């Protein structure tokens, strides 16, 4: 019997993640240096793990409020105020979610009417377009370019805008490009959002990993807090990817709407992860800074090496991804990635997996040890040289 006839049409048409496909191949090979895993190589700092263990020992195993532990929401409010200069009321303007991934899912489901248009910049994380599709919205991609170091410009927004656009999804610093925006660029985007009456959904998960200059949250720009949902979490800054814990901050009516979806689909985020998150916000700053310093050093190393090898790579101001241009080799980004994997057993992700403006580029994640980075650069260099002969 063909059970696939029961699958909803819009899900059949949803493409499988380009990253996962590639990695099925990688998983079967031995001795591969993977620069393709988008998560910190660090384990969660011990004091955070221990706080969660302690919580389990004390019997913290029950449901929490749908919105999340009030203690966590208070810490989030303090943290966001201090680091992002936007103040949110822990009682009704903050929602604790199962990762930023869930926050994006419930936001799109709470905000999109069938046919509503949603703008997002690409190359981008693989889930944005699918979340729009799953909520029956219409995706309006906005290109970002190497000449701008993949910052999102108001000009590009204006060129891509169409009547009927309701939402603008931002991810700054950006996965996969490492691009982020200056204060002036953020202000220009804010001005555009106000002009076109857009609601902004801002995923700032990589914001602590900003290596030069300031990270400016669009929620802190005058006039924007009332039309922004600020999304953040713990996965990258505190190495808590597997804990599945994040949060959304925004105007009370929007948080209430998201909470409606969340309470039926999730009830609440894991209490253990919430306890760990409290510890992270209360005492995790030193550990976070130490990790950031490591990423900074690794970034400087790998970007320098890639440029030396002949693969032009801009210096990403944020995130832990380098986005080199591999088109100089004459190969497509897919062929280059596959060829590199087969010849030298180094895995990087073809940029086209992240959107059409990723064509010609590959994403290399430098959240891995110095030894691995050094060895990977040696192998990439050998491969690029072999292409010349």
């Amino acid at each position: 019997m063909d059970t696939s006839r029961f699958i909803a049409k819009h899900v059949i048409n949803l493409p499988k993640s380009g990253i996962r496909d590639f990695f099925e191949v990688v998983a079967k090979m031995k001795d591969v240096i993977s620069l393709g895993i988008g998560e910190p190589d660090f384990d969660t700092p011990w004091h955070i793990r221990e706080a969660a263990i302690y919580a389990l020992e004390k019997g913290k195993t029950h449901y929490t409020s749908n919105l999340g532990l009030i203690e966590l929401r208070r810490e989030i409010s303090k943290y966001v105020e201090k680091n992002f200069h936007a103040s949110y009321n822990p009682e009704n303007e903050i929602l604790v979610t199962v990762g930023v991934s869930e926050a994006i899912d419930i936001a799109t489901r709470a905000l999109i009417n069938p046919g509503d248009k949603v703008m997002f910049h690409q190359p981008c994380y693989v889930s944005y377009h699918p979340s729009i599709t799953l909520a029956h919205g219409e995706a309006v991609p906005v290109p970002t370019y190497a000449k701008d170091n993949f910052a999102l410009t108001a000009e590009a927004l204006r060129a891509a805008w169409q009547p009927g656009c309701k939402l603008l999804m931002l991810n700054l610093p950006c996965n996969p490009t490492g691009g982020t925006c200056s204060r002036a660029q953020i202000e220009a985007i804010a001005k555009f959002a106000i002009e076109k009456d857009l609601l902004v959904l801002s995923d700032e998960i990589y914001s602590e990993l900003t290596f030069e200059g300031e990270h400016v949250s669009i929620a802190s720009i005058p006039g924007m807090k009332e039309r922004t949902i600020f999304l953040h979490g713990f996965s990258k800054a505190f190495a808590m990817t597997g804990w599945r814990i994040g949060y959304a901050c925004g105007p009370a009516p929007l948080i209430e709407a998201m909470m409606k979806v969340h309470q039926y689909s999730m009830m609440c985020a894991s209490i253990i992860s919430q306890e760990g998150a409290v510890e992270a916000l209360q005492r995790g700053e030193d550990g976070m800074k130490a990790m950031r310093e490591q990423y900074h050093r690794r970034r400087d190393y790998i970007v320098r090496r890639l440029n030396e090898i002949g693969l032009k790579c801009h210096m990403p101001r944020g995130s832990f991804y380098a986005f080199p241009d591999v088109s100089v080799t004459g190969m497509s980004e897919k062929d280059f990635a596959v060829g590199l994997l087969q010849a030298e057993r180094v895995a990087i992700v073809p940029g086209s997996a992240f959107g059409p403006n990723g064509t010609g580029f590959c994403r290399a994640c430098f959240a891995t040890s110095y030894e691995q980075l050094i060895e990977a650069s040696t192998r990439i260099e050998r491969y690029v040289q072999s292409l010349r002969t």
Partner: protein
Amino acid sequence: MNPVIKLLLEGGSLSTAQMAQVLNLTEADVNRELEQLKKDGILLGWRPVLNLADEAGAVRAVIEVRITPERGGGFNRLAERISRFDEVESCYLMSGGYDLLVFVSGSTLQKVAAFVSEKLSSIEGVLSTATHFLLRSYKEQGFLLDVKTEENDRLKVAP
């Protein structure tokens, strides 16, 4: 004892190339020995021995911890849980009036005190702690500090 370990323990700072010269091995041999020592869990890592007394923010303390042994695990589980904290430099099981000797460092006295009261003392199974703060170090891991070395005036030629 392995000649490579012996040479390492002497505390000189020879490069692997120099070690190879001294031991009459190739550098590859020395590296292979070191890799094997790592695999066997004998060589745990490399740390320079630094005198940080003048550096602001190097507060060290030694804590005597009394814990209850557990069925099936003795002191191991608790000792491991305590050892995993970044603040803990070393943790030893001792004979005598207490169970664990824990060496701790932090950037301020308050931070070390907070670690002891909030993280260490509150673990289930920890009966008591006695914290002693380090005032001055005279010898660090085999190296004397602040001791004036005599000028070496050995004769260049002697019968």
